[in-house]
């Protein structure tokens, strides 16, 4: 089967406009007869649900949390990109497009990325109109900050809680539609299968997580905004409940899963402290605007620090290795995430890590305290040479910018980051891979859409900072509402989709069998036991550096672990009640399949690109080495066992951008 990305004709800059001018529309009276299901209420799902309801469709929205406001988009910290060029620093739609394609290591689809850059401005307008309280300058206009991998300041933010503010904006738009009865909200519900009737997605099977009841819901189209799959690593910055189930079930029903091996390991997270750890916490990339990353130059200092005999603040400048500034003078501490993570790993592998486990580097704000402190002292007419005063004023400025992050760090690590440098280490954060979609954001199953992190389309092999929020809202507010209309215009005479068809029977039976098996299994190990084992395999063999041998081992080990899971997992309680262990077991069962496909995809991709680093493919300086023959999207078709999946290739063509070595030097 050939993959058709359905990219519209015409010059890049005109494609989206031409497309919108020529699609079929649904008239308002007909929209009232059309139902759409939206899974997930994060930035993508929430904004899509609100907009579709506002256009007149009947929307049913589902989330596993107790309220749509709790979706994990809420935890995004740093900001959202938009090509507004408010700073007059040379930004433009083309430059945002260019940065995103380059940042993604030339593995994303040109037309999708250009559209994303094009609608980015509109997102900011929309959010301000909704009352999202972005950071402002004293003149009352919107403030910007810069992020990794770019040379302009195009990131809009709300302290270190930008995701929260944007999500609450989408939530408020949903609330307006829930109040009007146009969205029917299903909290504490988990989608456990997608129902395909006559080749089209026509509904879902969901489980009410409070009563355990299995429900059938039908619709004319199903939209998956169910997020990423970083929790396949057990430890990640994702929420505890974030899972791949919706996307994976769609995959098992025929939707192709694209580039599963493209995972973002974020450079600035709080290091792991012990075996009890349940999740990892991110320290926003925006901190790299003001923090400088370093490790000691001398091994003696490293040893003294680890033994607790030396404080980092006592190490003089000349004995510090600001390795990002050293290796990448043009971008310095603001290189993209994949580059920064690998550089941290390189130093720690060489033995320069600064905590007990040897897996941490410093993020130091001392220079920023000086810089900001002097500026503020100057503005206030105070003594710029008073070191204590300057430091205090500088700390004040940093507190205004990142106060919540510093507080979070202190609570977790029990060290005051205003007085001693933060310790950070890379952790799994975001997954660029996801369900394959065409330009319409439709999977290869007609009527099944995938938006936000759940799809694969915009970030290639590496996502730039502050672009996830942009993509989520672009998909939900401005792209999907158009593209889905073109599809639904053929459904105006279909009428309500019945839920008593054999397809619904079969899907429900399948779900119930799995639940019955798990609850009656009575094995000897908890769900977490298996999840942690899977996470270890993934981190060691499919993490920041991968090689063929390790990946082959991972495929075998994950497959064995999966068999053991189904034979030996223990799920307490019953089906007909709130049972978190049962919900977890269903999610981990899917991670145990996805993990295997992930390793297979990484094995097949004999190159290094963005977040996918194959040890066999690197330059003499240890940078990622791409290969022109892999300039394609790997879209996998399910065949019963993940390792038997069939590869389909979507060749990537770059007509508006020159593919060259990605350099940040």
């Amino acid at each position: 089967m050939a993959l058709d990305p359905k990219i519209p004709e015409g010059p890049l800059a005109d494609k989206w406009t031409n497309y919108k001018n020529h699609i079929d529309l649904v008239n308002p009276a007909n929209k009232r007869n059309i139902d759409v299901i939206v899974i997930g209420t994060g930035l993508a799902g929430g904004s899509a649900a609100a907009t579709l309801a506002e256009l007149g469709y009947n929307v049913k929205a589902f989330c596993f949390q107790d309220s749509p406001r709790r979706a994990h988009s809420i935890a995004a910290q740093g900001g959202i990109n938009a090509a507004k060029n408010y700073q007059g620093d040379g930004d433009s739609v083309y430059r945002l497009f260019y940065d995103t394609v380059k940042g993604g290591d030339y593995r994303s689809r040109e037309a999708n990325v250009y559209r994303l850059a094009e609608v980015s401005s509109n997102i900011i307008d929309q959010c301000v109109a909704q009352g999202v309280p972005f950071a402002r300058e004293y003149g009352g206009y919107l403030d910007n900050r810069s992020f990794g991998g770019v040379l302009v300041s195009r990131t809009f933010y709300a302290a270190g809680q930008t995701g929260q503010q944007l999500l609450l904006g989408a939530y408020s738009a949903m609330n307006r539609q829930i109040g009007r009865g146009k969205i029917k909200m299903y909290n504490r519900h988990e989608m456990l299968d997608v129902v395909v009737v006559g080749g089209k997605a026509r509904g879902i099977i969901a489980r009410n997580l409070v009563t355990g009841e299995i429900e059938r819901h039908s619709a004319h189209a199903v939209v998956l905004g169910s997020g990423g799959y970083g929790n396949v690593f057990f430890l990640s910055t994702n929420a505890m409940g974030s899972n791949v189930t919706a996307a994976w079930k769609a995959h098992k029903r025929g939707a192709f899963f694209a580039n599963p091996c493209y995972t973002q390991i974020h450079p600035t997270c709080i290091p792991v402290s012990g075996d009890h750890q349940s999740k990892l916490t991110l320290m926003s990339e925006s901190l790299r605007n003001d923090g400088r990353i370093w490790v000691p130059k001398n091994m003696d200092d490293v040893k003294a620090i680890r033994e607790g005999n030396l404080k980092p603040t006592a190490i003089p400048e000349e004995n510090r290795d600001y390795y990002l500034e050293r290796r990448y003078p043009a971008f310095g501490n603001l290189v993209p995430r994949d580059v920064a993570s690998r550089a941290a790993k390189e130093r720690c592998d060489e033995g320069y890590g600064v905590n007990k486990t040897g897996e941490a580097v410093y993020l130091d704000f001392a220079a920023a305290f000086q810089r900001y402190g002097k500026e503020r002292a100057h503005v206030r007419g105070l003594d710029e040479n008073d070191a204590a005063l300057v430091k205090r004023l500088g700390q004040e400025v940093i507190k205004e910018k990142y106060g919540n992050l510093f507080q979070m760090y202190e609570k977790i690590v029990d060290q005051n980051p205003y007085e001693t440098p933060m310790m950070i280490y890379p952790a799994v954060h975001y997954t660029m891979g996801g369900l394959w979609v065409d330009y319409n954001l439709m999977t290869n199953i007609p009527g099944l859409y995938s938006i936000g992190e759940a799809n694969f389309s915009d970030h290639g092999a590496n996502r730039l900072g502050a672009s996830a929020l942009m993509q989520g809202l672009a998909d939900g507010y401005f792209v999907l509402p158009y593209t889905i209309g073109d599809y639904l215009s053929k459904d105006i005479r279909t009428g309500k989709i019945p839920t008593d068809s054999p397809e619904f029977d079969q899907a429900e039976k399948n779900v119930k069998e799995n639940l019955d098996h798990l609850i009656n299994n009575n094995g000897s190990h908890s769900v977490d036991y298996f999840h942690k084992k899977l996470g270890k395999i993934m981190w060691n063999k499919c993490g920041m550096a991968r090689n063929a041998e390790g990946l082959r081992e991972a495929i075998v080990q994950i497959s064995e672990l999966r068999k053991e899971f189904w034979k030996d997992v223990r799920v307490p309680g019953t089906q007909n009640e709130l049972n978190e262990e049962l919900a977890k077991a269903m999610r981990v069962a899917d991670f145990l399949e996805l993990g295997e496909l992930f390793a297979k995809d990484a094995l097949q991709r004999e190159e290094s690109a963005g977040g996918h680093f194959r040890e066999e493919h690197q330059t003499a300086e240890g940078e990622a080495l791409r290969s022109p023959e892999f300039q394609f999207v790997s879209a996998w078709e399910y065949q019963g066992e993940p390792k038997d999946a069939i590869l389909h290739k979507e060749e990537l063509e770059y007509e508006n951008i020159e593919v060259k070595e990605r350099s940040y030097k």
Partner: protein
Amino acid sequence: MKLTLKIWRQKNADTKGKLVDYQIDGIDGDMSFLEMLDVLNGQLINKGEEPVAFDHDCREGICGSCSLFINGEAHGPDRLVTTCQLHMRMFKDGDTIHIEPFRATAFPVIKDLVVDRGSFDRVQHAGGFISVNTSGKTVDANTIPVNKHDADMSFMAATCIGCGACVASCKNSSAMLFVSAKVSQFALLPQGKIEATERVLNMVKQMDEEGFGNCTNTGACEVECPKGISLENIARMNREYLSATFKG
């Protein structure tokens, strides 16, 4: 460290609950409170008993899922943190810790420590929004300048995570801090002024219908709020409400 836990166990909304004692050992000060409960649950599962149900998700203090009334305080003894960010270093070896759900008429218990906070959502449905079409074209963002002080105050109010600690801490189970945070966020912005009258009237009406109590200005909510939402918001909402009643 070694601890005695007294945890509220309740099968479902229709049955009576009670405090049950558990002994737990080997707890490290670097664990979060919820990681300590993970350890307990792991042990219960291995013994063939039912784990303790509690709400949690992001575990970084922002989603508002986690709750818990710990030794008589919402989110426990530390200040400006949610339970997921509360660390065991706040306790000492040999301590007895009481763990109960957030209690309020408007937050019925679903199971063990899990409560239904749907009433908060319904208050938001009544008016927690600005009526702007998300699919439409709006004006350029910088054509609406906002005084930085107002924008910052609006942001501070908007950082409410909707956890319900304010309600659980209030002797009247009042939701005034929660509702006033949303009312304030919009009242402080020019975009929010247009619907200000309807918003405050509708949200307060819904708040009353949900069975939340009245505010008697004890300020317990502000002390226990993990995000430090200020009582000033309640004063602002009262002003908004008063002026809306005259207009309305």
